[in-house]
């Protein structure tokens, strides 16, 4: 059984995808024994009216999700009154967390508004997912290029945000080294491995960060679902490690 923490619905702006209609998405996830999918909306990347995006996301998950899709709304802290978006995500849409796209929303992580958003998420006990990349920088649309999110500023924020549960999604090579170690030991910071590369990548990753901080994330339907699945197979892991990655870590993270 798998809890997939990195799934999207609606449309990727640059390509139609097999799985971008919810019934085929659900069929794919079910065929691989996914019992829960933390689901954001591609529309949250470029649409300005994120309130409408979140409403549509919640509605889609409720009516078409067959109990499998858990909505994670997006909040853009550069927009006026983003606080109301956050409130609606929790109070109206019953979302357990939010998913942020700082590169496309045009702010860096040392922005005061980002800190304020994290603080309010902590007060509301919401999980915060942070997408570092959406696509290889080398293959982006020439008129819509963004850089990988720099995570270095998070380290300075962590001491002032006790209780923050942060999930870093689509990490490629950074953060790495000392920063990676500090992030995972000085705060409750989790990582998925949708964009992790290198042979036996997961086994190497859990030499650098605690094994209970790794979450299964496929980034389906932009990536082939099988990529994440086969990465678990490729790494030499104990049954306990595999179970923790497939679902145990994510379940504990969402428990109140």
């Amino acid at each position: 059984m798998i809890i997939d923490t990195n799934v999207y619905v609606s449309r990727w702006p640059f390509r139609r995808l097999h799985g971008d209609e919810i019934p085929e998405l659900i069929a794919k996830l079910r065929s691989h024994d996914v019992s829960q999918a933390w689901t954001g909306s591609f529309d949250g990347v470029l649409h300005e009216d994120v309130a409408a995006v979140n409403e549509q996301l919640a509605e889609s998950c409720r009516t078409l999700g067959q109990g499998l899709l858990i909505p994670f709304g997006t909040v853009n802290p550069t927009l006026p009154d983003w606080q109301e978006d956050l409130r609606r995500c929790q109070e109206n849409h019953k979302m357990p967390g939010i998913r942020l796209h700082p590169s496309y929303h045009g702010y860096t992580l040392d922005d005061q508004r980002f800190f304020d958003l994290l603080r309010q998420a902590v007060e509301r006990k919401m999980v915060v997912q942070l997408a570092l990349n959406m696509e290889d920088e080398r293959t982006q649309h020439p008129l819509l290029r963004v850089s990988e999110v720099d995570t270095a500023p998070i380290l300075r924020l962590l001491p002032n945000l006790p209780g923050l549960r942060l999930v870093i999604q689509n990490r490629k090579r950074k953060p790495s080294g000392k920063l990676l170690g500090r992030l995972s030991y000085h705060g409750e910071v989790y990582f998925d491995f949708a964009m992790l590369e290198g042979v036996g990548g997961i086994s190497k990753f859990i030499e650098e960060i605690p094994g209970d901080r790794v979450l299964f994330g496929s980034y389906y339907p932009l990536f082939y679902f099988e990529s994440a699945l086969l990465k678990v197979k490729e790494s030499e892991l104990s049954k306990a490690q595999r179970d923790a990655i497939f679902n145990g870590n994510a379940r504990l993270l969402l428990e109140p």
Partner: protein
Amino acid sequence: MIWDLHVHFSNFKGRTPHEKMANAVKFADRMGIERFMLYLGFPPHPEDPTPEGLTKINNQVLEALQHWHHRAFGFVYLNPNHLEFSLKEFDRCVRDGPMVGVKLWIARKCNTPELDPIVERAASTNAVIFQHTWVKVTGNRPGECSPSEFAELAARHPAIPIICGHTGGDWEHGIRAVRAHKNVSIGIAGSDPTNGFVETAVRELGPERIIYGSDAGGRSFASQLAKVQGANISDEAKKLILGENLKRMLAPILKRKGIEA
């Protein structure tokens, strides 16, 4: 049957070619990969190697093949900036040695005429020709050719089969650039496992012109296998892409060398 077109020593533990191969084979076994093509020596890989550099690199691959010739084949790394030497190195490693293909990377733009003698020499022994391509919105390296530049080379040699490495990375661009050149097959290794890559390639090129490879150990076998195993295509097409196409391409040179595989 899975054959992998694109493997390097990178990221596999070990101090010697033999130790690195033992590790590579361990991972290949986990993922069901029967054979893989090995090229370039220990990292870091020089972009414009000297003749001495090429010899050292190719010797590492030759050493790796000594114990592992039943699991891997070697491609000789050549540099068109040292053309005379490269032709000799081809003879040493392929014509008179155990290697079965040629790897060309980013030392020189592949549409320049210096590539022609290499392509012709390779074809004279049925060696498989692999040319790296990428098209980066962030900018290519100076000698790094795009799939469109690669297509110029392919057009000059319409009777010689030739592989477009990485399909340009931006595969929507790459597939289009080589589509009209029937002698071109694409290598799908070394890019993100973006949903739709292999389906699009099957639609535009047909399954016979698509070859699975990983670019492991820099990439995982997993993410690259997923491009085929996760694709919405027929099982027959998957078999072709995962191994049969490459095996068919290698058949003439393997026969010439008396290698059964």
